[in-house]
């Protein structure tokens, strides 16, 4: 909301020395935050005075132009009282006209300095100004001719035309709709500076007389008050006076025509949107009702709209003529030939306005005010102000009939304990202060021994609850007086185990050389196709956004891989070669039949709460990682090592180990992994994720390095299985080491053979490590040799060679029996 200081001063008795900055600081402290201060005219320097044209002699020039050699009476402004000789190129004025003259020494907008200079054979001592040159707009090209009664030659034009002003641009929160008017801003300004406020809505209005335009309201809830007045004999060519056009320009409203400008002017003045109809285009009774299914209306903006039965419409006998409170229709629009104007000043139901505005995607100054709530008591004053201005400025006559249908709702009351503001804000606020401040905002207050009852001002529909009054009192006392006191928090339990473990996972990943990224959770079907997910893959069951930012990504992702791989590709595109990335974020698995919208007058009961939660998608936290390029870099120390599928598996193991869990691994085939290089990761026999090498086709499609390795784990599943570590029991008797090399079928997973050896060796086996894998001669085709180092130890004695040999033989025997393993010599 833009509010010129000069306009505010009209209603608030601000001391002369109050600056825009002072006022802005007070308004900001009251909750109307300053966005900016504009200072139009502040780049104008006088002398800038009223001049009367005494003589005017056209002098044709060789270049075809005709200039006027004028003498202008500028009073004593030039110090001599003699007429001022000025050359002027414009012709839209004449002898006797009052014009604006800038004398030598003055500066016009843009730093244009005026000096007496020789031109066209004369000494031109100054300039006769156009609207544009004065920074008053660029709608007119010619010289600004002042009204005959504007002033006397020599009068200071800067003051006369309010050329200098300061405009406060204020941010108005949705609850303070009353501040979308000068009436409201000035009221706050008066409040902020403790000065008198003159309410522009206070005017004597003629009472309803039943002789006005015929109006029938079918929906009094949607339109509780409808005031109609008529002006006839209006001159549609009458211009908008400069002062009004100027003020409209300052508040950011373009001047359109006198009739429209007057309705806009009153809207900015009083906050009440007004609609004017060409009364001659109306037929019969004006009505208000809800639209019926199938009805349509072409609004002023030329859009043909299908109406909803929730839309409030204005009708006459011809049908629908406007979308009530939001936008008028084309058929009854005021035009360049309108001479009879029917003025509608109606109060509309805010929520209906909001819904209609949203449904038709219509935002307008009127709609913005109507949906947030306008003072229902100003309808008559606003209508009267409009018809008076139309008659005054447009040469018309206010017709005597006044129609008022309905009445503003009674003012509401709220009762609060006198000490409530102090109790809620923690400030020391005396009862009499509470009383005074509530009266200052416009409440009529009655006090009891411990309570007060406030009758709420009609222009504050946002006030409804006791705490609303607390805020009113607090903002006038000043939020800066709220003390700073620490609350008496109870002893807390710190982070939950899951929260601690999540941090541990992140630190572990960073320690392993992975960089964390945060990606958007949006994907499209094409992203899932590119991963090669089967049509029945559960990751295809997604939640769809109704209004995605990009039509290509309308789904909430079920896997972190698309975002992570896109990030790999982006980094590669930016020249990074060796990459290790990870992300920890939830994925979305839809479920249920929808969440209920519950009441808000009580807490949900157990069944409602359960139903609500059951409808919210499962959103397990996932960990995804990708590694490409050299995992260990090459350097002066020698060759590095390129990341392979096993790095992804091992990182998953490291993460699990950081949580005290040991992953088991089995081979699997799941998109988007290489079908021969995909490991399923399990804890206690439950699958928690997959790791391995990215499918080469997917690598190509996504533009990530060949052989990129990746893993995705359900971190919640991991965390839920983590148990506190227990101290190990270990023997200090000597260790016995044995190696064994076994030849088995090439497709036997090493993990399986290791498990067999462990089982066969029995309790004396302390540990086992695979240290070599060999295929090729002398191992026969289709077979491979796996070499293990075994460590044996007993808890209670030193093992004999026989003990160790027996355990080793048992392990080999079980491997032979179960897998056909042969010992390699």
């Amino acid at each position, binding site marked *: 909301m833009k509010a010129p200081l000069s306009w505010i001063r009209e209603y608030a008795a601000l001391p002369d020395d109050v600056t825009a900055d002072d006022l802005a600081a007070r308004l900001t402290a009251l909750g109307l935050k300053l966005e900016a201060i504009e200072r139009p005219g502040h780049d104008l320097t006088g002398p800038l005075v009223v001049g009367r044209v005494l003589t005017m002699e056209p002098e044709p020039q060789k270049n075809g132009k005709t200039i006027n050699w004028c003498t202008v009476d500028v009073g004593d402004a030039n110090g001599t009282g003699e007429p001022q000789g000025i050359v002027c190129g414009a012709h839209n004025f004449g002898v006797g006209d009052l014009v604006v003259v800038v004398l030598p020494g003055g500066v016009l907008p843009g730093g244009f300095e005026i000096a007496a200079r020789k031109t066209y054979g004369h000494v031109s001592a100054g300039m006769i100004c156009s609207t544009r040159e004065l920074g008053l707009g660029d709608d007119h090209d010619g010289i600004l001719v002042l009204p005959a009664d504007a002033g006397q030659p020599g009068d200071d034009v800067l003051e006369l035309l309010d050329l200098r002003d300061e405009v406060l641009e204020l941010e108005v929160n949705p609850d303070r709709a009353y501040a979308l008017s000068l009436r409201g801003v000035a009221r706050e300004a008066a409040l902020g500076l403790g000065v008198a406020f003159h309410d522009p809505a206070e005017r004597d209005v003629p009472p309803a007389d039943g002789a006005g335009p015929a109006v029938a309201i079918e929906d009094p809830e949607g339109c509780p008050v409808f005031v109609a007045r008529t002006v006839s004999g209006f001159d549609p060519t009458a211009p908008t006076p400069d002062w009004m056009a100027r003020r409209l320009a300052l508040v950011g409203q373009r001047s359109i025509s006198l009739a429209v400008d007057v309705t806009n002017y009153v809207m900015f003045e009083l906050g009440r949107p007004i609609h004017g109809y060409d009364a001659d285009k109306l037929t019969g009774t004006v009505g208000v009702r809800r639209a019926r299914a199938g009805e349509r209306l072409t609004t002023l903006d030329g859009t043909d709209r299908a109406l909803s039965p929730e839309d409030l419409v204005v009708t006459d006998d011809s049908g629908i003529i406007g979308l009530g409170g939001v936008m008028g229709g084309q058929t009854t629009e005021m035009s360049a030939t309108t001479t009879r104007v029917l003025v509608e000043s109606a109060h509309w139901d805010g929520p209906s306005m909001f819904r209609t505005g949203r449904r038709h995607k219509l935002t307008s100054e009127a709609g913005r005010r109507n949906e947030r709530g306008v003072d229902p008591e100003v309808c008559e004053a606003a209508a009267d102000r409009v018809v008076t201005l139309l008659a005054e400025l447009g040469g018309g006559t206010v017709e005597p009939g006044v129609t008022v249908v309905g009445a503003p709702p009674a003012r509401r009351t709220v009762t609060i304990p006198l000490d409530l503001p102090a109790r809620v*804000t923690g400030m020391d606020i005396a009862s009499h202060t509470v009383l005074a401040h509530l009266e200052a905002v416009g409440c009529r207050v009655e006090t009891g021994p411990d309570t007060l009852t406030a009758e709420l001002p009609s222009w504050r529909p946002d006030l409804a609850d006791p705490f609303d009054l607390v805020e009113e009192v607090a903002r006038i006392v000043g*939020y800066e007086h709220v003390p700073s006191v620490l609350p008496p928090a109870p002893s807390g339990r710190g982070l939950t185990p899951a929260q601690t473990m999540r941090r541990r996972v992140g630190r572990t990943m960073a320690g392993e050389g992975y960089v964390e990224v*945060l990606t958007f959770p949006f994907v499209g079907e094409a992203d899932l196709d590119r991963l090669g997910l089967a049509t029945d893959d559960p990751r295809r069951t997604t939640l769809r956004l109704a209004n995605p930012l990009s039509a290509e990504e309308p789904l909430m992702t079920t896997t972190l891989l698309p975002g992570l791989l896109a990030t790999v590709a982006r980094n590669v595109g930016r020249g990074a070669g060796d990459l290790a990335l990870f992300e920890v974020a939830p994925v979305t698995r839809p479920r249920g039949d929808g969440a209920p919208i519950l*009441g808000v007058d009580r807490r949900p009961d157990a069944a409602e709460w359960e139903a609500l939660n059951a409808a919210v998608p499962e959103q397990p936290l996932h960990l995804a990682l990708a590694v490409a390029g050299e995992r*260990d870099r090459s350097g002066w120390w020698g060759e590095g090592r390129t990341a392979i599928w096993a790095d992804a598996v091992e990182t998953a193991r490291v993460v699990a180990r950081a949580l005290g869990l040991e992953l088991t691994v089995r081979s699997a085939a799941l998109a988007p992994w290489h079908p021969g290089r995909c490991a399923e990761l399990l804890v206690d026999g439950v699958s928690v994720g997959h790791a391995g090498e990215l499918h080469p086709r997917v690598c190509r499609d996504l533009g990530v390095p060949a052989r990129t390795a990746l893993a995705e784990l359900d971190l919640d599943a991991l965390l839920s299985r983590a148990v506190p570590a227990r101290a190990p029991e270990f023997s200090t008797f000597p260790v016995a080491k044995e190696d064994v090399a076994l030849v088995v079928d090439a497709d036997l997973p090493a993990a399986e053979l290791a498990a067999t050896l462990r089982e066969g060796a029995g309790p004396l086996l302390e540990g086992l490590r695979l240290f070599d894998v060999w295929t090729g001669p002398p191992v026969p085709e289709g077979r491979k040799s796996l070499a293990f180092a075994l460590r044996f130890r007993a808890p209670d004695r030193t093992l004999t060679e026989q003990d160790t040999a027996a355990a080793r033989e048992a392990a080999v025997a079980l491997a032979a029996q179960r897998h056909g393993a042969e010992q390699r010599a």
Partner: protein
Amino acid sequence: MSGPNSEYDPVQVTPLDEEHVEAMRVAALEAVQGATDLADLKRVRTEHAGDRSPLALANREIGALPPQARKDAGRRVGQARGAVTQALAARQAELEVEAEARMLAEETVDVTLPWDRRPTGARHPITMLSERIADVFVAMGWEVAEGPLVEAEWLNFDALNLGPDHPARTMQDTFWTEPAEHHLVLRTQTSPVQARAMLTRTPPIYVVSPGRVFRTDEYDATHSPMFHQVEGLVIDSGITMAHLRGSLDHMLGVLFGEGIRTRFRPSYFPFTEPSAEMDMVCFVCRGLAPAIEDCRTCKGEGWIELGGCGVVNPRVLVACGVDPDRYTGFAFGFGIDRMLMFRHGVSDMRDMFEGDVRFSTAFGSDL
């Protein structure tokens, strides 16, 4: 050992006279001094102090001297041998130092050689800042509350006093999901976590909830459809706005330095009443910007906009099952991304979500 010399020959004992002993001593000391390395010294030791060295042989002759001569000769030879032993020890020490110095010099490497065998990992600064903020409150006894990103519409709006026709719903550009009748949204704020906290805990409640939120903002240098907020909620008896300010001032003091405090301006949020916008004193110019030179961090305002806060609206307490006659509460919320931007000089929000490894690695392992 030599016994008494039975074949006494006065000629053979001339080495025991003063001149000879001195000559042997001088020769030995010269040899010791002349040894160039430890091996050389070992040879000298054998030659001049070994069993067959001239002085050792001379020593053996002492017994053969007449008793009156023994004492002088013994002293002479003993002193000479002592001097040689001492010189050997000293030279040994010298040569050992030299040898070690030589070895160390030979083993010198170029310590500026890189050893970046494994690329550096890093956590995301948003993650770290979220944890840092949470820790300030956890240290005060608060707990960290969490909730889902895809949330029930009722929890994101209605329960927070944002009814279906509340004009404030247009303040937040919501991602809605299909089908509409399922009433699910991407949470536009972390406030539904506050509602969940009230519905699942009993007062006193002291929780802080950092997390991701979503709004349909176009992606540019200062907007992102996904960003991060942290909200705090306290429900207890006797809670006032003063406790709100105290908690925030404490947090700012910890995160930005002693004396960095809040300013409240009246504002509007459906969730709170009274509501306030909170600004913090600029931690760079400490609020002096308007008076002194421009400050880039606060753009010369002296204050940095932080977020919103207020006293929990009793309507919200009712919908979330808290007795408004018994308890009051406060809540606040602000953007973590924005704080990262002004605290650490991030100029483009997109840097946070594009995943360029150069971004995260620049922040180290903690903030």
